[in-house]
């Protein structure tokens, strides 16, 4: 027996014509939760969102909300009857209507008094109380996107869909708008799904992130989860910075690499002697003056609060390393490094050309100790 969540997407396959663009995707959302579909462009995330909105039919599987089937292979509930709001990438305010008329558009059946109240409530929520009588073209991009959010929330939808709502805005604006909109959604206790290719947006907004590639959901979990415990090489590569280090399995619990022998506290699940790759995040490597392990600095990137170095180990492999700002070293110097690994992410060797083992799951275990 499946537990009914607020939204259930069950084994949904979507197709454009003959070609499947989303394969067997499943995810669920609790009421008030913010989910995120994260992936590179063309991975099918927007198509999946449009299917939830009812713009695209499903080929197989089904989409349910509050126990009600919205779409399956045979039936599709028209968008306008789903009580789902949507904010679009290109904002899509109605240019011939004022801001107030735009917001009222979805609540025309309400009484005039309620409409006015709701408009005022939403405009103050988005911090633009005085723009009711203006037209969309007189607003800036960020203001327009906030109005679009207000318009989508006006009918108090059961679910709000956000299709790359920030990608048309410049970086500064995005940084202020993202937390602002998250707070607005929280305040209204809105269940929402965000589609984005920007992991910082996803991390800032979402309780739950589904990473997609080639029309498949690769991993679903919290931001912490997908960053520190990526299930496969694609997720490891796509989320955050990091390098892959050649390694080989030593025994059930430990693995050998240029950084020495690393031991986990759970079985790794590979036969001893298997060649594997280790995922090393920049924050896994610390600068340590005393360390006997050193690498030559090959690049240096000042990032404001810290430096990001890349150091080349004796065997030629390159590792990222983050140091505090006062550790200012030059390219070409040797940097002493130590390993502070919380999670041992062991991935099977992939053919970089074909990516054959892309979908094979990685082994993530808590590391216990680092030994040389």
């Amino acid at each position: 027996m499946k537990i009914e969540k607020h939204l259930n997407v069950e084994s949904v396959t979507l197709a454009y014509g003959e070609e499947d663009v989303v394969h067997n995707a499943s995810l669920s959302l609790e009421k008030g939760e913010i989910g995120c579909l994260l992936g590179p462009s063309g991975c099918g995330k927007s198509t999946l969102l449009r299917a939830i909105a009812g713009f695209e039919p499903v080929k197989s599987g089904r989409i349910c909300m509050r126990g009600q089937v919205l779409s399956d292979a045979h039936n599709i509930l028209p968008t306008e009857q789903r009580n789902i709001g949507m904010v679009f990438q290109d904002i899509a305010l109605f240019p011939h209507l004022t801001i107030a008329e735009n917001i009222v558009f979805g609540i025309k059946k309400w009484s005039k008094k309620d409409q006015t109240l709701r408009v005022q409530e939403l405009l103050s929520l988005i911090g633009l109380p005085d723009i009711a009588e203006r037209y969309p073209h007189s607003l800036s991009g960020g203001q327009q996107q906030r109005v679009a959010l207000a318009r989508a929330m006006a009918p108090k939808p059961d679910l709000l869909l956000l299709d790359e709502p920030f990608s048309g805005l410049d970086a500064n604006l995005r940084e202020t708008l993202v937390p602002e909109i998250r707070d607005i959604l929280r305040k209204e206790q809105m269940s929402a799904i965000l589609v984005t290719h920007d992991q910082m947006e996803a991390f800032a907004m979402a309780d739950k992130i589904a990473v997609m590639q080639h029309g498949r959901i690769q991993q679903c979990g919290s931001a912490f989860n997908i960053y520190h415990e990526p299930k496969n090489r694609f997720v490891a590569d796509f989320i955050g910075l990091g390098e892959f280090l050649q390694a080989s399995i030593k025994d059930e619990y430990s693995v050998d690499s240029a950084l020495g022998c690393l031991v986990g506290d759970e079985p790794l699940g590979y036969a001893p002697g298997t060649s594997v790759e280790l995922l090393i995040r920049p924050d896994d490597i610390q600068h340590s003056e005393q360390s006997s392990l050193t690498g030559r600095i090959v690049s240096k990137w000042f990032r404001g609060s810290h430096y990001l170095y890349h150091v080349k180990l004796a065997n030629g492999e390159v590792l990222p390393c983050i140091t505090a700002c006062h550790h200012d070293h030059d390219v070409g110097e040797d940097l002493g490094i130590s390993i502070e690994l919380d999670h041992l992410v062991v991935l099977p060797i992939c053919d970089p050309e074909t990516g054959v083992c892309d979908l094979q799951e990685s082994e993530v275990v808590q590391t216990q100790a680092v030994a040389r």
Partner: protein
Amino acid sequence: MFVVTPLKSPYRVNWLTSSSFVIAVLLALPIFVIAGFVFSGSADVFTHLYHTVLFDYVSNSLLLMLGVAFGVLLLGIPTAWLTSVCDFPGRRIFAWALLLPLAVPAYIIAYTYTGLLDFAGPVQTAIRQLTGLGYGEYWFFEIRSLAGAILMLALVLYPYVYLLSRAAFLEQSASTLEVSRTLGYNQWQGLFKLALPLARPAIIAGLTLALMETLADYGTVQYFGVNTFTTGIFRTFYGFGDAVAAAQLAVCLLSFVALLVLVEKYSRRKSRYHSSAEFKAKAKLISLSGWKAAVAFLICLLPILFGFLIPAGQLAFWSLTQADLSDGSFFQLAWNSFYLAFLAAIIAVSFALILAYASRLNPKKVVRFSVATAGLGYALPGTIIAIGVIIPFAWMDHQLIAMAKKWFSVDIGLVLSGTLVALLFAYTVRFLAVSLGAVQSGLDKIKPSIDGAARTLGCTPMQVLKQIHVPLMKSSVLTALLIVFVDVLKELPATLILRPFNFNTLAVRAFELASDERLIDAAPASLLIVAVGLIPVILLSRSIAKGRAGS
């Protein structure tokens, strides 16, 4: 409980798709008919034509095109460059006024200048009075000649080159030109090494449009007695009564047109690469003063003066002082022209709306093909369309008459080819592309996400149409109606061939009167055509002024 609608099968034929296909096939009929005659029918008359006049047609058409090309480039490019890159007194007025000649059909400017410049006209009369010379004792430019036709066509067609190359000059970012300055080119070198080559695709596009109009022209060359394809098609059709040979001539003309269309398409494909950047710094205008400003002023003034002010002034003068309107037919003509143009506009825009919505909602291959086919007519000269319409319609009429006689023993007459049906059909073929362009550009502005937003806010598809599309599309549909209306009002050759017996329009009557050397009596009708023709030109220049408002 929600209402669940069954999922639409992708294989179900959509009525929009099917009707757009039907429209396309219908509108392509004239082309099929003409093309069909390449391979069929007797070649006797054509062989005769080949041995006698075909060489004339080809060489005259080519010379005409060459001359007009030279003329429109000479008038169009310098004016475009001056009004977009330089600053001098009157620049803002010139920027839109240079479009005014677009409102004057070539045949009207042709006989207006004939009235001015021929032996009995005011100019030569004045010369004789001043010098005392008599007939044949002095040389004067013979307007009714190939050179005259070139001059007339260039004067009213240069705005195509002006318009497109000006847009290209304005699009060129300041930084492009500034880069050339930092690399050691002065402003004038920058013009020839950079601005002109960059604008070349636009210039070629404008040139091909002007040349297509040149090939399509019938009134001017007929009036001036220059034998080209269009006059040849007419003469073969009426003189020899040979529709087949006329169609075969039309095929020759069609190959010229096809070549131009290809050139235009090619140049546009290239021009796409140029305007990619979103934001462009506006170039600082080159300030002209003194004699330079005076020269610039003159260069911009002359085309307007000769292309619009003098002919329009002359027509107004004739209309107000000398024209004979006593028979009252003028108002009948105006009424005929207006309701015909209005009906044609309604039909063309309705078809355009069906095609535009079909390609928005089902962008399938069938629909894209339909839209492309339906738009072909714009490249076709009116004469070709008229021949392509009259042949199948006359055939169908004969079948209908025979059937009616056989089954109902009544004589129904020519229901298709002898009525306005043929004319309206020809107009729709010719001007659908124009209305389609206007409607599509309006529809493109309504992003698909706007529909989506309305749907998520509880609108059914019909409500989206009513609450979003109708208010947003209003102005583009009106523009489309207006453009077709004006184009139909000005259209001459197809109307001449297809009009029902005893049915006259302003354009036809003006041309007939002028051909009978009653130039002055033709003036009121011509003036009205020019006046109505001004409306879209004003719209165009207003949108240009808006686009430039930031400067």
